């Protein structure tokens, strides 16, 4: 087995550092803490980048019993996810250096923050389902402290809710893994799936199993029947945490589904079966319902969380269509949504950090007070709504196109409709903040207004993320090409 | 004819005469005589048993000069000899164990009477075991009854006398039925000697005449003996009789008297009527039902009982149920199991009675279940004895009760018909019930009582040194239990050979 040091470091260095930060009694002084955490994060990110750059690498780490094995394997898809994560994670970390001032127990926060990065890397690079599941569980457990960070009662309750929902999902997945272990050729991820030859007469059973797994990962991705935890859990976390949570962590559910459907089971197995239909239905319901709830929500972070619910289901919808174009859309949306949503959350965080205002209707004239922030916010939301040339447009275009050409009855036209409606809703729930922010109306007292622009440490990440969310939409071709290569191997 | 063949006759006579002699002896001498006699007879029966095992088979002993059809006979086989030996051992131990209590409870003038009664009891038991003549059996049944009645009422307070009266009434009903049955048998067959009766009964069966009278006769005899040995529905007299008489009496009554009747019943089954005919007449099924219900109801009433002596008494109702259930199976295995249970139960039950008395003594004489708290610490020997007895009753391996339970179960499993499952289930259930009331008591006596309570209630502690005789008795009892439990193979062998020679 070729022993790839970078891979090891990328995964285990952050974990080790995180544990050290947690248990090392020193690090009393804030700057020292920030320094250490940032340094360790940076180093591990370099390793990760090295891996990403190198491209192909695999590593059989250890065999813990029977067919159970921790096995890492870097493939293009993993690279994409890893890259996105790395970037956003870095931004959020910089942001939190400032933001976390007004939270307590930063030691724990940063410790886990670094730790989770390692876990996510492991998820991106994991080469078989067992490894994926292992780190998936670990992710659930390690993100928990981030959610429960301020120990308010609701935070703890939200944390428990998160825990139990995610475990519920994880166990559904595990249920599936048990069966795939028997009937699938192998649990290793092979592009296009190894098929279910062994399944023989158990196709009905297999369908149930696959559906359960979709549901299971769907929990993390906030898909309809099991989405309730997301709007509760994400907002209570500190803003940077909720940014990465709803920008990246939820994507791990998506990644899981992709891995199962396109890398183990193979899309052909469920194409045209009731599983696909059910899945599509669920995603569409989620898309619509998520936007509706977001529209009706008054607390800003909650509103963003609901929007996450619906946006992730865009991605899932694209996957469920099981055709290349739609899938391109989905993967694009993965990338874009990561940048956009984290940007939105961060700006919301900035607002809270400066003004302490959480409800939307308090934000009249906020644009006057902190223009840069709100401009970033505006660009990001435009991207999310899908105004060309901002990024969201591209992905939605592919999604719509894919669904139209997929030729699945009803859904082929119902899909785009729903997408459009929810895009309108998105505009409806995001833009008012900008508008009211910059145009507070006549009765706003301009005397009382003072500038509350946050310091550069907070602004720069915002700018970068906002910029990314626009630019990626303007020059998407390299990304699209790369994704097309990946997808080419899957169908 | 070998000299050893005189043993049965002489042992009967010896005990009877010792009884007569004791009437003019003072208490102590009577006591010594009684002990000696029991020892001698026990030794003799052991000798006889060994001889019989060596030579195999059995022999009949003609009394007087009249040959078989007219004269009176004694018959001895391995089973009889073994039974006699066992009865002697148990009786000896019960006497020893209860001796101290006897001195406390019975006034001095009555002591020699007590020993007279014991001797008579022994002789009648031996006669029941050995006799080959039905009417003799009847006479000795009556003697047995009278002696038992005396043993019950020797401790003269209202309770015991009342108990004695109840006992008398029930057993007189029983013996009345028995007598009637015997007379009808005589009427049917014209014989009184078991072997002859058997022949002519076989003839009758072959001829196919007198079916109903025969069944009625068997029924009369069986019911009569069942009443006397306190089979379930006829057990009303038992708790008082066992519960209030002095401990030796209780031990002997529960482990010897009733067993004597049961043994007589077995003899009648095998040697008088013939086992196949018995099974043919549906009598065993009735016994089976009564046995099963006895196993359950005896235990249940024991659970409700708050008086420890009465509790043990009720438990022997349940155990007798076991025995009759074995009869009721109507197979040789069942019979073997029953006979083994006769031994096991006798050993265990007398142990329980004797140790229970030790426990009640140190609890200011109170027999109430709740006053026994911690008594096992006040009288360790009794505590151990009681625990062993309880475990054996519950059927923990290594103790006698387990083996008999195993045998019963095996007999049931080997049983061809539908009796299998009910038996097994009832066995298990009754085990649970036994566990409930016995182990409840064991736990209770091992939960220490507070010092001040003990002081105020006037409890005291009894060291093993202060009660040597008692201690030795208990130890011997326990040993018997263990022997029955762990080396049961030869004993069962003896029983089986004995049953074979019975026919």
């Amino acid at each position: 087995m070729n022993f790839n040091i970078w891979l090891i470091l990328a995964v285990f260095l952050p974990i080790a550092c995180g544990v050290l930060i947690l248990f090392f009694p020193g690090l009393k002084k804030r700057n020292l803490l920030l320094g250490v955490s940032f340094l360790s994060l940076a180093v591990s990110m370099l390793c990760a980048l090295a891996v990403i750059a190198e491209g192909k690498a695999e590593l059989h780490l250890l065999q813990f019993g029977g067919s159970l094995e921790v096995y890492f394997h870097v493939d293009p898809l993993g690279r994409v996810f890893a890259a996105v994560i790395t970037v956003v994670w870095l931004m959020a970390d910089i942001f939190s250096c400032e933001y976390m001032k007004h939270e307590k127990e930063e030691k724990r926060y940063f410790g886990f923050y670094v730790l989770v990065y390692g876990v996510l890397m492991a998820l991106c690079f994991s080469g078989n389902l067992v490894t994926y599941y292992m780190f998936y569980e670990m992710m659930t457990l390690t993100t928990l402290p981030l959610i429960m960070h301020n120990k308010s009662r609701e935070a703890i309750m939200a944390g428990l809710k998160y825990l139990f929902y995610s475990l519920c999902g994880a166990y559904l997945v595990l249920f599936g893994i048990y069966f795939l272990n028997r009937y699938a050729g192998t649990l290793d991820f092979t592009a296009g799936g190894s098929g279910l030859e062994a399944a023989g007469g158990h196709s009905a059973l297999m369908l149930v199993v696959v559906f359960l797994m979709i549901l299971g990962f769907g929990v993390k991705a906030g898909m309809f029947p099991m989405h309730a935890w997301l709007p509760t859990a994400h907002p209570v976390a500190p803003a940077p945490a909720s940014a990465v949570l709803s920008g990246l962590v939820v994507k791990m559910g998506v990644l899981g589904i992709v891995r199962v459907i396109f890398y183990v089971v193979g899309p052909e197995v469920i194409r045209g079966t009731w599983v696909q239909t059910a899945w599509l239905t669920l995603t569409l319901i989620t898309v619509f319902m998520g936007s509706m709830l977001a529209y009706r929500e008054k607390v800003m972070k909650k509103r963003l969380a609901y929007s996450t619910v619906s946006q992730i289901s865009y991605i899932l919808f694209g996957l469920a269509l099981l055709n290349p174009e739609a899938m391109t859309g989905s993967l694009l949306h993965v990338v874009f949504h990561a940048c956009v949503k984290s940007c939105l959350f961060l700006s919301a965080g900035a607002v809270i950090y400066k003004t302490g205002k959480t409800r939307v209707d308090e934000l009249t004239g906020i644009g006057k007070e902190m223009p840069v922030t709100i401009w970033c916010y505006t660009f990001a939301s435009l991207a999310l709504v899908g105004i060309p040339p901002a990024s969201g447009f591209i992905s939605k275009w592919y999604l719509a196109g894919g669904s139209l050409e997929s030729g699945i009855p009803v859904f082929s036209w119902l899909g785009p409709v729903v997408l459009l409606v929810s895009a309108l809703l998105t505009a409806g729930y995001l833009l008012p903040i900008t508008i009211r922010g910059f145009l507070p109306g006549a009765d706003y007292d301009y005397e009382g207004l003072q500038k509350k622009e946050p310091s550069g440490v907070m602004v720069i990440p915002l700018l970068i993320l906002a910029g990314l969310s626009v630019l990626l939409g303007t020059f998407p071709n390299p990304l699209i090409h790369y994704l097309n290569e990946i997808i080419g191997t899957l169908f | 004819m070998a000299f050893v063949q005189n043993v049965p006759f002489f042992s009967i006579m010896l005990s009877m005469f010792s009884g007569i002699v004791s009437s003019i002896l003072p208490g102590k001498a009577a006591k010594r005589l009684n002990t000696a006699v029991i020892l001698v007879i026990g030794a003799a029966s052991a000798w006889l048993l060994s001889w019989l095992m060596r030579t195999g088979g059995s022999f009949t002993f003609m009394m007087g000069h009249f040959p078989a059809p007219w004269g009176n006979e004694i018959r001895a086989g391995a089973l009889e000899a073994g039974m006699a030996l066992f009865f002697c051992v148990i009786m000896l131990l019960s006497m020893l164990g209860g001796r101290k209590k006897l001195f406390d409870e019975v006034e001095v003038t009555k002591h020699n009477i007590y020993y007279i009664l014991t001797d008579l009891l022994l002789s009648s038991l031996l006669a029941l075991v050995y006799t080959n003549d039905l009417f003799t059996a009847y006479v000795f049944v009556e003697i047995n009854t009278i002696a038992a009645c005396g043993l019950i009422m020797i401790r003269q307070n209202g309770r015991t006398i009342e108990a004695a009266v109840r006992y008398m009434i029930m057993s007189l009903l029983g013996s009345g039925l028995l007598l009637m049955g015997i007379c009808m048998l005589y009427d049917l067959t014209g014989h009184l000697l078991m072997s002859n009766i058997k022949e002519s009964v076989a003839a009758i069966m072959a001829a196919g005449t007198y079916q109903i009278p025969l069944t009625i006769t068997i029924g009369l005899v069986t019911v009569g003996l069942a009443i006397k040995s306190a089979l379930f529905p006829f057990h009303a007299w038992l708790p008082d009789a066992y519960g209030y008489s002095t401990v030796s009496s209780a031990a002997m009554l529960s482990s010897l008297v009733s067993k004597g009747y049961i043994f007589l019943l077995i003899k009648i089954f095998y040697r008088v009527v013939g086992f196949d005919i018995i099974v043919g007449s549906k009598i065993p099924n009735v016994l089976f039902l009564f046995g099963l219900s006895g196993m359950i109801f005896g235990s249940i009433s024991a659970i409700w009982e708050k008086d420890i002596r009465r509790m043990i008494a009720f438990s022997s109702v349940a155990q007798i149920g076991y025995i009759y259930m074995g009869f009721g199976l109507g197979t040789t295995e069942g019979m073997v199991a029953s006979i083994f249970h006769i031994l096991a139960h006798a050993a265990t039950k007398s142990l329980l009675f004797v140790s229970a008395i030790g426990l009640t003594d140190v609890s200011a004489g109170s027999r109430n279940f709740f006053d026994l708290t911690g008594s096992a610490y006040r009288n360790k020997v009794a505590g151990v004895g009681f625990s062993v007895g309880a475990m054996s009753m519950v059927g923990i391996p290594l103790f006698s009760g387990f083996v008999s339970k195993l045998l019963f179960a095996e007999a049931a499993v080997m049983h061809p018909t539908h009796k299998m499952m009910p038996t097994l289930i009832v066995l298990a259930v009754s085990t649970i019930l036994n566990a409930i009331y016995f182990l409840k008591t064991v736990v209770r006596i091992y939960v220490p009582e507070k010092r001040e309570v003990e002081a105020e209630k006037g409890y005291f502690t009894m060291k093993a040194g202060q009660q040597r005789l008692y201690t030795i008795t208990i130890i011997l009892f326990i040993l018997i239990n263990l022997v029955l439990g762990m080396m049961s193979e030869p004993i069962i062998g003896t029983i089986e050979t004995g049953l074979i020679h019975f026919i």
Partner: protein
Amino acid sequence: MFGSNLLPNLGEVVAMILFGIGFANLLLQKNLIKKIIGLNIMDTAVYLFLAIKGYIEGRSAPIVVDGVQEVEAYINPIPSGLVLTGIVVSVSVTALMLSLTVRLYKRYHTLDLDEISSRLKKEGI
């Protein structure tokens, strides 16, 4: 044919009826004395039964008066022997019962057994 068997066995029938009466008395009567009487009736019934069994029409008791004659002259002696033994037994038993009764009566001034036991319960011995 029922009736036909009835008449020749009249004695046995009577014995049985008596036995039943005695049994019932011994079992059911409250009064101890009556119980004892019942007991005696029961025993007597049995003796009657035995006597009838032993009796042979037109023969004399097996007591030698004028020289031993051939067997046909005598009735069957064994039942008579049994009756004698039985009488002895029943006498002794009756005596015992009576003595017990006397004792109980001295203590409790009643012959009702249930009454006595209820009092014992009160005494709580």
